[in-house]
């Protein structure tokens, strides 16, 4: 079977004035279906840049990226949008919920752009909120929820469309330890029970410990790639 993600010599160069910033310098990477990958590395090493490329939010300056056998490095914006809608879920450090819009409507969003009937959108979004433990908070606005709860709405939004990959860029970066654990437990569950591939950026070793594979980045390159038994299997 084709790997889910295949990157060959991926470069991302930002040009600011006359200066070129090489955010990614020749990334080669293969990720299989069902993996739980943690990306670590110093600030500015290119972790977010890589996530955005893999998540089809941005396109590489150079190199080849195949998602599920499809070359997306040169795909048109609408093709990328379709991929993000059906294959990909995002969880961001700063939640990125639409303000003054209910938790339910935020969670509905991917289905909204899929042309699903309103009734079905609501039903599935409510189910997704229930999965992240937010039953009863459907009508709350983001501002009426705690940080941990907001991140759970974001996870509900990411999983409502049943994607094959979930990208989480420092999902616990703004949360306390207890909330972080809750979020990580949900992600781990999604990986183990639903088989969703998870790629997660973090600075904290105990968050990275949930993953079964760890990538370490430095200066736009992957300098270390270790596979190991995940934290939970160690405990059991």
């Amino acid at each position, binding site marked *: 079977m084709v790997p889910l993600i295949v990157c060959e010599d991926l470069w991302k160069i930002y040009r600011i004035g006359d200066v070129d910033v090489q955010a990614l310098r020749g990334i080669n990477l293969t990720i299989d279906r069902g993996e739980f990958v943690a990306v670590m590395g110093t600030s500015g090493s290119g972790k977010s840049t890589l996530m*955005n490329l893999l*998540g089809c*939010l*941005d396109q590489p300056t150079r190199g080849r990226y195949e998602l599920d056998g499809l070359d997306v490095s040169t795909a048109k*914006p*609408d093709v*990328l*949008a*379709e991929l*993000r*809608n*059906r294959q990909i879920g*995002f969880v*961001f450090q700063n939640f*990125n*919920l*639409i*303000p*003054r819009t209910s938790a339910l409507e935020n969670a509905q*969003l*991917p289905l*909204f*752009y*899929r*042309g*699903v*009937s*309103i009734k079905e*959108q609501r039903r599935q979004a409510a189910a997704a909120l229930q999965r992240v433990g937010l039953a009863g908070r459907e009508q709350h606005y983001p501002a009426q929820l705690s940080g941990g709860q907001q991140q759970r709405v974001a996870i509900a*939004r990411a999983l409502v*469309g049943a994607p094959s990959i979930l990208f989480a860029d420092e999902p616990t970066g703004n949360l306390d330890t207890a909330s972080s654990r809750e979020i990580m437990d949900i992600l781990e569950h999604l990986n183990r029970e639903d088989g969703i591939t998870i790629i997660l950026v973090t600075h904290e070793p105990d968050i990275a410990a949930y993953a079964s594979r760890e990538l370490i980045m430095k200066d736009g390159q992957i300098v270390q790639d270790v596979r190991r038994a995940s934290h939970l299997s160690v405990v059991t």
Partner: protein
Amino acid sequence: MSAFVLLTVMTALRILSRNRLRAGLTMLGIVIGVGAVIAMVSIGQGARAAVQAQVASMGTNVIVIMPGSTTVSGVRGGQGGAVTLTINDAADLKKRSPLLSDTGWARRDVMQIVNGNRNWNGPVNGVSPSYLTIRDWSFMSGGPFTQADMESAARVALIGQTTLENLFDPGEEAMGATIRIKNVPFQVVGVLAPKGQSAQGTDQDDVIFIPFTTAERKVFGSQFLGSVGALFASTEESADLPEAVEHIRETLRARHRLEPDQADDFTIRTQVDIGKVQESTSQTLTVMLFAIASVSLLVGGIGIMNILLVSVTERTKEIGIRMAVGAKRMHILTQFLIEAITLSLFGGMIGVLVGIVGARLTTVIAGWPTMISLDAILTAFLFSLAVGLFFGLYPANKAARLNPIEALRYE
């Protein structure tokens, strides 16, 4: 797609209701523009209908020939003592011009009219019986005087509604009553049906008709025997009017022995000409209001564009989020277009109300006739829709072309 549109409309309404003052101010231009269109069309159509009624009240395919020449500005000159038209002219025209179905004549003077202890100063018209037919006068009671009355210079009179109200008590029988014109007794043999205002704005019902011969011999005095105030003619078909006018001009010039370099000593007007003069007045008004409406719609459109550009900037992050979860360019474009159209249609709706109220006020305060037409309302709606679409397109397109990752990062 329908679920998408429905939810987008709901979202647009919610966003607009959050910024009511802003939305209201944005809509103002459209409100004024559409209001002006509605008021303009109502006033224009009201005026046109009134003019048409007035022109129709003249009769059918009427040609009026007045003594005196026409100056460049269209004002009649050489009046007063000018005695250039006679009953012989009328008779000759009838004989020579087969296009004319009838000719008549009239001469008028304001006189004192007395009934018992009431008296009234009003226009008394000495007319030929044919005049009454050409001008389409009809009767409430009684009927026209006859050729025999004309020949015998009978002292019979026909009175208009205004004259009736001024000379008689309410309920008093006018038919058969004797009134005195310049102290000469006349018997009322007909009461005319009302015609309302003329195209020139005079009250056509303030009138008395008596046979021309009687007027000449017994009322007006005989210093200009046979001369008339105006000649009237009519054709069967309105298409014949221009040719008939030329015929009349040639005949009269020949009869009056005018040299080729001499100007006409008479002026010919047709019903169509008179209608045109009135219509051009109401057209000036229409053009003015149209200008106001276009400018307001333009300003309104620019207002919508401006507020949408602000909104796109304010909501850049939201656009990024939507794109991250799979919104295509079409989706973002549609969302902002729907917001623009919602604004402009709301503005249009309020504008229609303002226009209707404005038209009503015009009728109540200025006394102008107005007619509110469904066509105008539909047109106004289409216009506001078009304004929303046109001016929404640029901001919406700008939003749709945002780069997802840059939009997401926007603070």
